[in-house]
């Protein structure tokens, strides 16, 4: 039965059906072959329950915030401000790219929005200051992926919903790994530029302490947004979804204050929001239906049993799962990958004795990797698009060192799970 399911899925996906169709047909086929019950009839109720799920409301809120922020003019000033602080390291503006991505990530739930925003602001500098394009573009593509690791995060909201894990706990767990990964990215740039100074471009001009301190003002709006969309959760003021909604209102006010928002621009923001939300939700609905059919038929249990009966060590199974995601991540759109596999993989992971919160962090890093691996890597596309000229392979090549840093971080998390688990434990006083 499991074999039939896998083969069927491969055929359906391989024939380039829409992912939601492929999942839907898989569910319908499995149910009509193996179940005496009309499982298809559950579709209406499942669809309504998923479409009206308050947790998932965070998804459009994050996207809308990103769409508005992109137009708000907040990022340019933040970028210049950060440059006063990190621009003199070997690698110059590339550190600024990473730092700006990390800070922007703390206000945005999406990797694509982060890469697009930082890319738009920093790209003109690349040519002006004579940077090696590949590495410079890599810092934007990879830096952008921090958008889903550093809270808030669309992917963590969806993971939390599908695996019944607490979103605030996931956010806390991702906090240290998120900024650690930003540090690792910077370290990579620093080392590469020490070894090959030619890649580094011009460093930013030294600035006085006073000017540095004055530049901190530009960090105000992002800090405000971070306090609203993440801080408000831990201050006990709002749930993750409410916090995401506060972000929408705040970004709208910022854009209005900067006189950057026309009605036409707002309509474009609406379009971007609805387009992505409906795309994601159609797959979520299809995945929930397949999950319903598979758990009714006992396939989910069979997979988990089979994995545990393999008698491999938990670490071996984990490594196989990680390898599988790295391969799949090259080809499959990342939200699709996450939504379609979470219901199967998380029960295996918990059966092996790993914490689903910890795995959520590892999973998101794997998704980040998928965003910068060719041929299908959304952040690679975004960066190439913002650049507008030159060979695509530059972006791919420049992102490679950061892929290694992601793998290194996964290794660290396996060796020291407390990197993720300490903060949630410390703050809940366990």
């Amino acid at each position, binding site marked *: 039965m499991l074999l039939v399911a896998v083969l069927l899925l491969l055929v359906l996906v391989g024939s380039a059906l829409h992912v939601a169709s492929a999942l839907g047909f898989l569910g319908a086929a499995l149910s009509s072959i193996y179940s005496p019950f009309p499982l298809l009839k559950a579709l209406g109720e499942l669809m*309504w329950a998923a479409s009206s799920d308050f947790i998932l409301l965070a998804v459009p809120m994050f996207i809308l915030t990103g769409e508005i922020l992109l137009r708000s003019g907040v990022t340019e000033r933040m970028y210049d401000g950060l440059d006063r602080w990190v621009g003199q390291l070997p690698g110059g503006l590339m550190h600024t790219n990473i730092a700006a991505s990390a800070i922007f990530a703390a206000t945005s739930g999406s990797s*694509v929005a982060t890469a697009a925003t930082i890319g738009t602001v920093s790209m003109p500098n690349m040519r002006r200051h004579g940077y090696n394009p590949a590495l410079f573009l890599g810092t934007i593509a990879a830096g952008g992926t921090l958008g889903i690791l550093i809270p808030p995060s669309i992917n963590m909201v969806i993971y939390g919903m599908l695996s019944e894990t607490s979103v605030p706990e996931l956010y806390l767990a991702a906090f240290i790994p998120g900024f650690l990964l930003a540090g690792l990215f910077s370290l990579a740039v620093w080392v590469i530029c020490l070894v090959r100074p030619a890649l580094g471009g011009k460093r930013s001009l030294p600035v006085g302490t006073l000017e540095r301190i004055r530049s901190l003002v530009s960090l105000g709006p992002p800090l405000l947004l971070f306090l609203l969309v993440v801080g408000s959760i831990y201050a006990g003021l709002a749930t993750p979804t409410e916090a995401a909604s506060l972000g929408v209102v705040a970004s709208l006010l910022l854009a209005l204050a900067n006189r950057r928002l026309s009605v036409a621009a707002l309509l474009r923001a609406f379009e971007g929001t*609805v387009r992505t939300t409906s795309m994601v939700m159609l797959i979520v609905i299809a995945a929930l239906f397949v999950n319903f059919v598979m758990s009714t038929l006992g396939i989910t249990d069979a997979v988990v049993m089979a994995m545990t009966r393999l008698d491999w060590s938990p670490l071996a199974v984990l490594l196989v799962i990680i390898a599988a995601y790295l391969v799949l991540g090259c080809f499959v759109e990342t939200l699709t990958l996450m939504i379609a596999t979470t219901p199967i993989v998380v029960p295996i992971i918990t059966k092996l004795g790993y914490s689903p919160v910890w795995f959520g962090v590892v999973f998101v890093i794997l998704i980040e990797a998928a965003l910068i691996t060719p041929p299908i890597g959304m952040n690679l596309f975004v960066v190439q698009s913002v650049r507008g000229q030159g060979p695509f392979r530059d972006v791919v090549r420049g992102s490679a060192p950061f892929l290694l840093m992601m793998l290194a971080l996964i290794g660290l998390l396996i060796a020291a799970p407390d990197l993720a688990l300490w903060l949630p434990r410390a703050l809940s006083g366990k």
Partner: protein
Amino acid sequence: MSERPAFTARGSQWLAWIGGGLMLASAVLITCDVVARNLFASTIFESFELSTYALAATVSLGFAFALTTKAHVRIEVLYILAPAGVRRGLDLLAILSLAAVAFALTWFGIQTVAESLTLGARSNSALAVPLVIPQGIWLAGLIWFLITTTWLAGRTIVLLARGRFDAVEREVGIVSLEEEIEASTEAHQRGRDAQRPEAR
């Protein structure tokens, strides 16, 4: 057949604007409730419940827009290896399949709304909203999705019969790398437009 955007594309864009507006309105209501709750320990709008209905409406009203703007994901690993003729066949298969899915969603959506109607179901909360109201709006989005997929499937058949392969690719093919890049450049472009409102 005109090259002007079809009624489905224009209608879907309107519905997307409505959906986006619903999300913005939800964000505002939720914000008011969060403020009121923390300042006065009371809520004003029951935004928790109302915003979930807004989400359901936005999601289903946006299905068709995601289709006409080619956002619904297809995996292209094998597709790009296939010769052009086969690819157009796969495009037809995909749009027909999606029409079938839209039919199933609409059909079972109708069952759910009908069930709420017969039971006289209300939301299990202080508001006690008759569920047929939000579910009815949600169902309207599903029906529009069915209309759009069916129309596009029919149009694909007609275009294939006339040998207009390029048009098929443009309307229902998988987004190419160039288009993908163009779409995200558009987001980038939009950022600039914002400073020049007359650009649109």
